[in-house]
């Protein structure tokens, strides 16, 4: 019997959940939220899915608007919210937003490059009982990391942030984005994480949206490079299995259709909140919905997202593209060109 593929095993799991009547037709509200707090960033990573800039967009939420969003997420019973950017910690009010979410016992994760995590920030993150912090480290040396991340001195700060947070008792893990700049170094980064005593390490496919799409000619991995990358991951997983967990994607995720088919097999459980006050169904889709300045999250969820994977534009998009790299050929690249907006 052949080994079950990622897609097959996922589909089987969904079928089991359906048989047990666990999965409803839709959820009344998101279970998880990914909140892009700002599009501003102090780094300029070659692989940024977002195309984050040094300047925030003029449409970003004010503090009072952000706190209102947090209140709505709490009232809706959202269970976990992951804050990201751009660089989430560039917002001066990040702690106020976390604090508001925590008032509702929402579990908060922070996705950051770590360069702004000093003693005071680490203390605040620990005090607010943030569930975990994910710090991006894209190389085992400053040279490799900074080639990917575009700022001299950032590697040292990111590594220091991991240690600082860990010392405060915060759960920290490292994420690694593979590109042609660093894919060969993944094993060394995993070793570094093991040496720092981390519980787990996360990596994913290079997402060819945003700046990554613009840079795709120079940073996209060839099939051979992906094979080497996955081989290194396998070797590290064996070597460090008693010390840490390695969370890696299935190579099948390279196939956009597979990724989107898997995502759309179960009812939608999350939404992405953009700095421009819209909601997204998925990072890889060029569609945004609603206007949080005019409509509550509940309404946008109900009208567009709760059964978002069945929407005609989404179904048609999934049918149209095969590979992640096919997105590059599309005129509407998420996070680069103007989104197709529904309101």
């Amino acid at each position, binding site marked *: 019997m052949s080994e079950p593929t990622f897609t097959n095993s996922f589909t089987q799991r969904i079928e089991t959940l359906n048989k047990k009547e*666990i999965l409803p*037709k839709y*959820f*009344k*509200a998101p*279970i998880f939220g990914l909140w892009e707090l700002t599009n501003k960033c102090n780094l300029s990573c070659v692989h940024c899915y977002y195309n984050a800039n040094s300047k925030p967009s003029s449409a970003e939420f004010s503090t009072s608007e952000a706190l209102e969003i947090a209140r709505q997420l709490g009232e809706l*019973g959202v*269970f*976990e919210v992951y804050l990201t950017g751009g660089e989430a910690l560039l917002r001066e009010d990040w702690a106020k937003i976390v604090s508001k979410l925590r008032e509702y016992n929402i*579990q908060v994760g922070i996705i950051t490059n770590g360069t702004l995590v000093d003693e005071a920030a680490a203390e605040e993150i620990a005090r607010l009982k943030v569930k975990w912090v994910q710090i991006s480290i894209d190389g085992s040396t400053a040279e490799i990391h900074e080639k990917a991340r575009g700022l001299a001195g950032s590697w040292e700060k990111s590594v220091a942030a991991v240690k600082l947070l860990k010392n405060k008792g915060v759960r920290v893990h490292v994420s690694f984005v593979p590109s042609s700049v660093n894919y060969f170094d993944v094993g060394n980064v995993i070793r570094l994480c093991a040496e720092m005593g981390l519980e787990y390490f996360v990596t994913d496919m290079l997402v060819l949206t945003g700046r990554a799409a613009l840079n795709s000619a120079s940073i996209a991995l060839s099939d051979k490079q992906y094979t080497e990358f996955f081989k290194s991951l396998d070797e590290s997983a064996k070597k460090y299995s008693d010390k840490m967990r390695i969370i890696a994607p299935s190579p099948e995720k390279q196939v956009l259709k597979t990724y989107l088919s898997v995502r759309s097999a179960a009812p939608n459980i999350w939404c992405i909140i953009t700095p421009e006050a819209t909601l997204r169904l998925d990072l890889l889709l060029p569609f945004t919905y609603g206007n949080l300045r005019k409509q509550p999250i509940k309404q946008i969820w109900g009208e567009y997202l709760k059964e978002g994977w069945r929407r005609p534009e989404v179904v048609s998009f999934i049918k149209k593209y095969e590979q992640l790299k096919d997105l590059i050929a599309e005129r509407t690249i998420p996070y680069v060109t103007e989104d197709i907006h529904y309101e």
Partner: protein
Amino acid sequence: MSRKISIMSKPRIAPNLRWRVDGENDQIVIVHKDDFALPRILNPVAAKIFHLCDGNNTIEAIAEKVAGEFEIADFSILLSEVSECARLFVEKGILEE
């Protein structure tokens, strides 16, 4: 494995549990706690048992109420299953005795 729960026990929802009713017919419950890796979904029968665990109903009374809503051939099996479900919920920190 934790000890069995007495059929006279009156379990109640753990005070630090975060939960919500969900699904198109309010048929499921999603529960979450700080020490859970991720939220968990209770299927319609588990959700029914969860709702009845209000600190007033004994396990036996809960089984009787569940039996009233579903076609159950053997009450003793149902009682044992409700008791096992409540034990699991207590073990996971969803309920407390």
